[in-house]
């Protein structure tokens, strides 16, 4: 996977003498000392990371951790004090004013927490803004804007003013405005932070939908752990201007780097974040229809289990057999086909654990994870689902 954004030793200090203070920082002075002695704030302190093309990279942290400062360094809305931001091979810190302008017009677009919509312009004129700045002709702008608006479902509102729209709709306009420029990179600064929980959920799903179609490189800022885990392909946890850990959500859950992160993820509702594909495992024993009941019993004995899934040659799920039925089949000379049962649950790999709980409680058997063509991808033991309800 290609690396789209490479950040090396990025530092951002606010204040009159940022370059001078940087020397002190690299000389070993602490952030707090610098603040009390010089009144300068170290927003971002020697941060390095990479963002892969097409991934959603989440930067998560509490207020004051530096995450908003950091994302603004990625399009030079904040002037970097020290370090490099290399995007597509160019260090944008060294860009001239024209190059930065061109970068902002073509490569990266931003979505803001409080939407940042121009209240004196209609919805469609907001979406057109980036195109207007680029100098694109009126009719073409209008066309593009209309098409983007229909992607986010707001075409009917194009002549309304932002104040006439609800929060969720306004942010959709914000998103449309950013997408209208067709940037490679989307910088999103807590875009759903100002929305109420129900709308937030909708927007998160919509973002994932859009991402599945467009495959942009997204840098996403949030302080909501659940949101980070739901959206992020990888997550960076920030504290006091530094990155504490970068990992996939599963890795963070499995091996938090320190107590701070452990504390952070404690509040995660695992069942909302973990999906079937994260907890399933490939069954240790599996049989096909052509195998007889004797083989079935053998397999069950070897694996120490009391039921077995049966698949065909293409690994498509046919059903299940239990130990009792199989022994009866041997005695009565029946084939597996005749004792197949179907009263187990199956689920698709993207389902959240939360949805499995009722099934795990109701069924006696493991849950099968299948794809669209009924192929068995893995199974989930009921204990995996039910034990996740107990917080660590």
């Amino acid at each position, binding site marked *: 996977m290609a690396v789209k954004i490479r950040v090396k030793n990025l530092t951002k200090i606010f204040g009159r003498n940022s370059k001078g203070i940087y020397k002190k920082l690299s000389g070993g002075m602490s952030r707090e000392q610098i603040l009390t002695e010089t009144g300068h704030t170290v927003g971002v302190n020697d941060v390095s990371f990479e963002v892969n093309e097409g991934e959603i990279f989440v930067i998560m942290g509490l207020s004051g951790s530096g995450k908003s400062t950091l994302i*603004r360094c990625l*399009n030079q*809305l904040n002037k970097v004090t020290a370090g490099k931001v290399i995007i597509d091979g160019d260090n944008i810190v060294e860009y001239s004013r024209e190059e*930065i*302008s*061109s*970068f*902002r*017009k*073509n490569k*990266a*677009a*931003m979505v*803001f*927490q*409080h*939407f*940042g*919509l*121009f*209240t*004196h312009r209609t919805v469609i004129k907001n979406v057109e*803004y*980036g195109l*207007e*700045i*680029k100098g694109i002709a009126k009719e073409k702008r209008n066309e593009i804007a209309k098409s983007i608006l229909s992607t986010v479902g707001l075409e009917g509102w194009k002549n309304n*003013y932002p*104040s*006439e729209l609800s929060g969720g709709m306004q942010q959709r306009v914000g998103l449309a*405005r950013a997408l209208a*420029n067709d940037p490679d990179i989307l*910088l999103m600064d807590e875009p759903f932070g100002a929305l109420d929980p129900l709308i937030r959920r909708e927007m998160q799903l919509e973002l994932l939908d859009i991402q599945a179609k467009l495959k942009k490189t997204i840098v996403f800022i949030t302080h909501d752990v659940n949101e980070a885990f739901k959206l992020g392909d990888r997550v960076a946890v920030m504290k006091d201007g530094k990155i504490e850990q970068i990992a996939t959500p599963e890795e963070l859950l499995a091996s938090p780097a320190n107590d701070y992160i452990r504390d952070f993820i404690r509040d995660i509702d695992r069942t909302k974040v973990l999906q079937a594909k994260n907890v399933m495992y490939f069954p240790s024993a599996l049989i096909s229809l052509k195998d007889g009941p004797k083989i079935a019993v053998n397999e069950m004995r070897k694996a120490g289990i009391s039921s077995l899934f049966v698949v065909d040659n293409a690994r498509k799920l046919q059903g299940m057999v239990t130990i009792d039925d199989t022994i009866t089949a041997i005695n009565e000379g029946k084939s597996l086909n005749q004792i197949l049962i179907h009263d187990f649950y199956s689920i698709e790999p993207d389902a959240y654990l939360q949805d499995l709980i009722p099934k795990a409680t109701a069924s006696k058997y493991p849950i099968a994870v299948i794809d669209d063509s009924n192929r068995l991808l893995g199974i989930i033991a009921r204990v995996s689902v039910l034990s996740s309800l107990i917080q660590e």
Partner: protein
Amino acid sequence: MLVSWLIDNFAGFFDGITGFGIWFLIRVETFLSWLPWWFVLLFILIITWKAKKNIKLSLFFTFLVFFIGAFGLWVHMIQTLAIVLTSVAVSLILGIPSGIIMAYSNKLNNLIRPVLDFMQTMPGLVYLIPAVILFGMGRVPAVFATTIYAVPPVIRLTDLGIRRVSREMVEASFSFGASAWQTLVKVQFPQALPTIMTGVNQTTMMALAMVVFSSMIGARGLGMEVLIAINQMDIARGFEAGISIVFLAIIIDRISQGVADRFRYPE
């Protein structure tokens, strides 16, 4: 001292301004007096209706202006209007760009603010003195003094309006690659417009307030009437002229407020 230095070195300059000023003012006045009275009344009717959408109010205002005519003060009203409108125009041309520049620079702001405070605390009367010394008596010094007295509100409110524009909006504009000028023209100025229009309204009111003082240095018009009435202890005459000024003030205030409201976008 400053004033004498200015006179010594720039006499020609000031005379030039006076010449131009008189020419301009005469143009304005001529135009306004050329308009037939019924046209003016009709204009007032239409413009106040457009501003306030209230036909009763419009008729009332038209009636007030008619009254001024009935007092025999039509010509005086025109003369006053010419001075006031010219002063306001100059104030806006100087004031709005100043306000914009101030909004961008904290240093400049800290420098100019106290000057504005000073200008607004000085009674308008005081400005008459340098005005006369530089320009003599008449309409041009009146415009000069009125402008100085009236310009602070529009500068202040332009500065305020621009500064108050949502930071996120400005960031958003820059994040799409807009230059500082584009951001000013496309985002900051339109956003600040309601506040700026309030500044225009205030400046206009201040200009009207100088009307009587202007008359003291030879500017003809309603102010002169008031001055004469005071000197002659002619209460009736003073009242008619005074109330005419008040009528003018009310009407102009409502019109400029109406215009300001036009610039509001749904918030």
